[in-house]
């Protein structure tokens, strides 16, 4: 059965939203610690990030929200952020503080595989990543590998990336760790399509948008629709 990862921008409502997502069937929650200049993010996450910063979601507030979420749900929680936050706090201190607040791992969007190896984290690989770097990422990643399904930024797209099958196949060749794919996945149909290719599906912008517009209820409903689409793939493959 495929893992469903749901990304939320860290706010004071994160614990409540995470509970709604987990009740809907999320297996892992990524919590985006906002950064002022998020290069890998499209308009939806960028705007949510901007709002969160205006509401005072600096590192300390995010760690508090993380701890609160930790006591609200029992799935792995993975902060996702940008290197500048780690630079300011100290790389190892940031990682330790996140762990103490309940993080299972960490994702840093602008820290390539070869920088700061002392920070154990989930690595991202992209369709453009050459074999050697893919192997390095697979060897050093923390638990699973994040496949960036397209050369592009975050945000919903009409179709699942045509680049994903080849990337998944190349990653399979060099690593045994589970492969979770994200970027551009929003509808249940797309989630099902991706679940047939890899071990997990990551949904970001679309979840942020639902949570922003309709709160925990809308998020719960949306996640549940993804969950059932993914589970049908598993049933189908078993039959």
């Amino acid at each position, binding site marked *: 059965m495929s893992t469903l990862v749901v990304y939320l921008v860290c706010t004071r409502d994160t614990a409540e939203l995470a509970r709604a997502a987990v009740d809907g069937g999320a297996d892992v929650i990524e919590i985006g610690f*906002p*950064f*002022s*200049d998020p*290069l*890998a993010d*499209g*308009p939806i996450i*960028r*705007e949510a990030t*901007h709002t969160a*910063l205006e509401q005072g979601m*600096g*590192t*300390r507030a995010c760690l508090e929200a993380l701890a609160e979420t930790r006591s609200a749900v029992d799935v792995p929680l993975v902060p996702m952020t*940008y*290197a*500048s*936050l*780690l*630079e*300011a*706090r100290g790389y190892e201190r940031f990682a330790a503080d996140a762990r103490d607040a309940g993080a299972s791992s960490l994702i840093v*969007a*602008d*820290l*390539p*595989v*070869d*920088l700061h190896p002392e920070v154990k984290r989930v*690595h*991202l*690989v*992209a*369709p*453009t*990543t*050459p074999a050697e*770097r893919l192997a390095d*990422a697979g060897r050093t990643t923390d638990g699973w590998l994040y496949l*960036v399904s397209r*050369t*592009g*930024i975050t945000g919903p797209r009409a179709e699942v990336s045509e680049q994903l099958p080849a990337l998944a196949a190349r990653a399979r060749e060099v690593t045994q760790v589970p492969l979770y794919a994200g970027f551009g996945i929003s509808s249940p149909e797309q989630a099902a399509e991706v679940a047939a290719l890899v071990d997990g599906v990551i949904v970001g912008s679309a979840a942020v948008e639902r949570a922003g517009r309709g709160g925990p209820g809308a998020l719960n409903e949306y996640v549940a629709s993804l969950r059932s689409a993914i589970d049908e793939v598993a049933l189908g493959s078993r039959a």
Partner: protein
Amino acid sequence: MSVTAESFFGAYGGRYVPEVLVPALDELERGWAEVRGDATFRRELEDALTTYAGRPTPISRAAGLDPTRRIYLKREDLCHTGAHKINNALGQALLARFLGKRRIVAETGAGQHGVAVAAACARVGLECEIYMGATDVERQRPNVERIELLGGKLRPVEHGAGTLREAISEAIRDWVANVETTHYLIGSCVGPHPYPKLVAELQSVIGREARGQILEAEGRLPDAVIACVGGGSNAIGLFEAFLGDEGVELIGVEAAGAASLGEGRPVVLHGARTLALADDDGQVEDAHSVAAGLDYPGVGPQHAELRDSGRASYITVDDEQALSAFRFLSRSEGIIPALESAHAVAAALQRDDELVVVGLSGRGDKDLGVVAR
């Protein structure tokens, strides 16, 4: 390749980018290493700089600024398209063609880089899209019209403060999505490795010329070399030739509201570890300057290292001082400087070195609207 000591200036620089961009940066680094020594490429670039951009640019003694001192202006304002930006734009456009890219994306602040890129793309035969913050689109209207006339597609960036910082982020996002067909023609010595080195090398022609010209005019090296610093490309271009001349003081001039070297702290911004205006958490803050080209909260990593090593020092000039130098140079020398360059002129006027070279990075036609307000 990827992460080597080569990619850093001391503790600054590096390559802090989404993994998707790493191969493109490797490709750029390899491509540049290949062409920079290639005789055909060198000849083509030399030819473009001479017969198209109008190099070499002269140095002009500005006796009217202070008759008791010998202040020379390095006249990048006389370059085609009106600023030093064309040196880098032509070099990278030729490099992009060598790499087989058909499309260029770029950011622009004051619009000078946008105009230079649009012109270079028109000449070299490349598609061109320019990201420009909405605030800058308003305050640098003449350059917007020039970019469009030259065939560049202008993409206004509405979010944030609508300045250079957002324009760079948006150009990088475009590049991330189109990395296989597109070259990102960055305009300053900022961004991930190899950009800061590439841009510094393409701009170093400014200092090489100026050093030879001042020796010829005065028979000695200057006491000080002064240039304005936003991202810092004209300053690094002017400084490079003098780095080994210990007696020559190197002075960078930041806008008072954008003093990344004066008040900044280490952050990761636009792909590099550098200094920027930021809070305790590493969140980058807005800068302010009347000069759009200096209105940037970060700075090129090489300047951060030059500050730490003490080889260069960095001071600030505020909007009023820059505006007053803008008017003074216009009246005393008949040269209308870019507001950015006016910061360097203002700094030169505050000092008493006897022999000085000031980087006049661009001309001020684009600023008439701003100054009138």
